[in-house]
């Protein structure tokens, strides 16, 4: 029953979106479709998905392979450090790389114009912007693929790669014929996350002038003041997301590759030549440099040179805002996820599993879609129930609406590790507890909860970092006088162009992300040892 309620929370906004699609389209929508605007949104989205996906996959798989299979100086450091770029929010990376526009691009454009004319410069500019956006996003998002690939190589294909090597195949051939195919499901899972992040991206796309569906949704909503066409665009975005998810499921196929518990294979071996060693270290260093060191250095540079004095009091406000929102929402979501995970355990069956999957849907939807859907749903409900503005006051003037939106969006990072943790607890424990006279919920608090402490902590960390970085939802739904580090950074950097002042909250965000990554890394290591 409770599960159904939570699933309802997510289903209602989606239902509103679907329902609007059945109404006759507004005039603005006809303008959007008729004048090819929809086409350019879809084209822009596809280019970004394809480009970022390919590049992130290359970086992630490459890095994971090098770190898994070769022993070289700095290997231990890089195996952790290559995850750090995940701590940099995408819109922060976009601003950190701003210098590339003025120092790299403009001279290039002038050169193009001199040699090829103004028309060529116009095209070259578009190509450069897209290339820069794809590169920046790929550099910051590849860790999703990296982590997935490492799990794949180490846990799944480890034994097979070893065998392949023993049989005399070179490392390269082992990678392509054995390592990759077996790690494929994991890698594709990581790639899925990258693509979903690209769909969700707002700040970076805005900055580089790339037209995507998410940008279009905000344009239609704000510029045209047309909720109808905004919702339709959200529908198109949802279709793309579903297509990606289905593609992922198909590509994963029915493969169920089992992790090899027991001896963790250390496949690493020293390359035969000094050239080999330096190439391995070099590759890792270059990736780490461009993905993490350079953007952080640029932010530090902005902060050190630009900020006259640090207004600690002013800075504390978004810090407190971020902390309280992340804690509040994080705890609410965790409690809900615990409830869902345990309920699924007590009442096994198809309906429960379906409902669980529904709750995870929110993660796949871009933040813009969630915002629109929830606001439309709220307006609809208050209209239907004639509660006038009661629902909306609770919704926008207090953090309740924002927490609900976070819950819709971030249920998956909470639920997935908890569900996994649950399945590791043997059913015999449940039965033993019942025999001893405890109720279901008594068992939960005494047995399951303590056993879940590691996944719980892991889920809390991931949730925390995700909520801290979140931008589009928070921009629209945050209550008065509440600012988060994300909105403060975006406001200062995008609206006011005060890049120096904006670098301070940005650096705090990156720092907290790094701390999260380190803790998560330790947790995963500890869970493997147990």
């Amino acid at each position, binding site marked *: 029953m409770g599960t159904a309620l939570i699933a309802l929370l997510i289903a209602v906004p989606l239902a509103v979106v679907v329902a609007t699609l059945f109404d006759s389209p507004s005039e603005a929508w006809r303008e959007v479709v008729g004048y090819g605007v929809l086409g350019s949104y879809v084209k822009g989205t596809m280019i970004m998905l394809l480009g970022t996906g390919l590049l992130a996959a290359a970086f992630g798989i490459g890095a994971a392979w090098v770190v898994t299979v070769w022993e070289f100086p700095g290997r231990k450091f890089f195996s952790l450090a290559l995850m750090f770029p995940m701590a940099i929010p995408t819109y922060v990376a976009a601003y950190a790389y701003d210098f590339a526009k003025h120092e790299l691009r*403009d001279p290039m454009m*002038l050169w193009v114009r001199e040699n090829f004319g103004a028309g060529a410069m116009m095209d070259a*500019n578009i190509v450069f912007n897209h290339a820069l956006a794809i590169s920046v996003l790929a550099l910051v998002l590849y860790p999703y693929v990296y982590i997935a690939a490492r799990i794949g190589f180490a846990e799944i294909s480890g034994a097979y790669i070893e065998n392949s090597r023993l049989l005399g195949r070179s490392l390269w051939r082992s990678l392509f014929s054995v390592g990759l195919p077996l790690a494929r499901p994991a890698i594709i899972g990581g790639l899925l996350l990258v693509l979903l992040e690209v769909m969700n991206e707002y700040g970076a796309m805005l900055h580089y002038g790339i037209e995507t569906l998410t940008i279009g949704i905000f344009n239609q909503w704000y510029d045209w003041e047309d909720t109808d066409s905004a919702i339709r665009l959200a529908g198109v975005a949802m279709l793309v997301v579903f297509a990606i998810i289905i593609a992922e499921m198909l590509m994963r196929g029915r493969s169920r590759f089992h992790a090899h518990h027991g001896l963790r294979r250390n496949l690493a071996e020293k390359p035969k030549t000094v050239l080999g060693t330096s190439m391995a270290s070099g590759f890792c260093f270059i990736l780490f440099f461009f993905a993490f060191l350079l953007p952080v250095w640029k932010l530090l540079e902005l902060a050190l040179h630009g900020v006259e004095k640090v207004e600690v009091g002013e800075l504390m406000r978004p810090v407190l805002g971020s902390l*309280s929102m992340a804690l509040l929402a994080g705890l609410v979501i965790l409690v809900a996820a615990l409830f869902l995970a345990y309920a699924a355990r007590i009442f096994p069956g198809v309906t429960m599993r379906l409902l669980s999957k529904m709750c995870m849907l929110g993660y796949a939807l871009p933040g813009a879609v969630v915002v629109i859907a929830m606001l439309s749903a709220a307006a609809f409900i208050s209209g239907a129930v004639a509660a006038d503005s009661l629902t909306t*006051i609770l*919704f*926008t003037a207090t953090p309740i609406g924002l927490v609900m939106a976070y819950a819709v969006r971030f249920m998956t990072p909470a639920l997935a590790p908890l569900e996994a943790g649950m399945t590791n607890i043997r059913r015999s424990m449940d039965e033993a507890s019942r025999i001893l006279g405890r109720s279901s919920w008594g068992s939960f608090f005494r047995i399951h909860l303590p056993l879940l402490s590691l996944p719980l902590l892991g889920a809390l960390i991931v949730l925390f970092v995700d909520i801290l970085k979140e931008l589009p939802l928070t921009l629209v739904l945050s209550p*008065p006088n509440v600012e988060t580090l994300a909105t403060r950074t975006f406001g200062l950097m995008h609206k006011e162009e005060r890049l120096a002042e904006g670098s301070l909250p940005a650096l705090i965000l990156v720092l907290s992300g790094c701390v999260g990554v380190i803790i998560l890394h330790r947790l995963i290591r500890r869970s493997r040892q147990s």
Partner: protein
Amino acid sequence: MNALFRMPFIASLLAITGCFLLPKAGIANEVTVYSHRHYEADDALYAKFTKQTGIKVNIVKASADALLERIKAEGKNSPADVLITADAGRLVRARNAGVLQPATSTKLAAQVPQNMRDADNHWHAFTVRARVLIYSKARVKPSELVSYEDLAKARWKGRIVARSSTNIYNQSLLASIVAEAGMEKATVWATAVRANMARSPEGSDRDQIRAVAAGIADVAIANTYYVGLLANSPNPKDREVASKIGVFFPNQNGRGAHINISGGGVVKSAPNRNNAIRLLEFLTGPEAQGGFPETTYEYPLDISGTQSELLKSWGEFKADKLSLQTLGEKNADAVKIFARARWK
């Protein structure tokens, strides 16, 4: 963590954060401002207001559109007292959406000229800005520049930059052209100017000015106060940019340069109506008006009365007398035309 301790710990965390975030109802003497203006100088101004009147100012900063949607969604129970935007069009939109209320006082009536406020006092302006042509001093002589309409001519091919059509300043400029020449001619104009651009619209007004300084283009369309912000920026690169460009007021032989305003209105369901009016009186009063040209480089309501060196260096100009109301009314047309012209 021990399960026994977890519950109380969680409960107290929730309680603390809850206290932080729940709306503080019924605290005496405050005014809640939903503002699209985003200047540090404004915060200083509000602080002065609080010191003088004892009224606390709560600010929600977001884009005007987001603020409007929010007030509409919040309805009768919205905590907003004042809506401040950086454009007349958005104020007209807010008025038409029914979220503002008539509010005036003898001070407001005296301090704000009639063409700088809504006919029924739903909103009042407090600063003015002109949307002008920024040109490269090295490659363009001011005598070559004439009007906005002239930018459609072939000799400007590949030499213009402007920001995206999603920006309200561009929309209001186009609205004024629609009011002058009608939708068809305005569409032809927008399409021609877009074709004359050196690159696809990207970035802010300041980025357009930087592009002119860098040689990417020769002319940019931008608001006057950005020149002030660049000229007085702590960043030496910005100051260098400002030194390379000049300010030209178009259409001086015709209707005059396009102006827009930043202003505010009292929200319909404002819980602190009187405080809201006092804030507007303060913003349109002599202290604030004297400060704007020095802090945000905007023109005061009395354009030619300013004593600021920088603003005076740009010269006197004839401003378009078009009613600001029209900017709002023609906004939807402007958005449509931009989409058809594929301005982006």
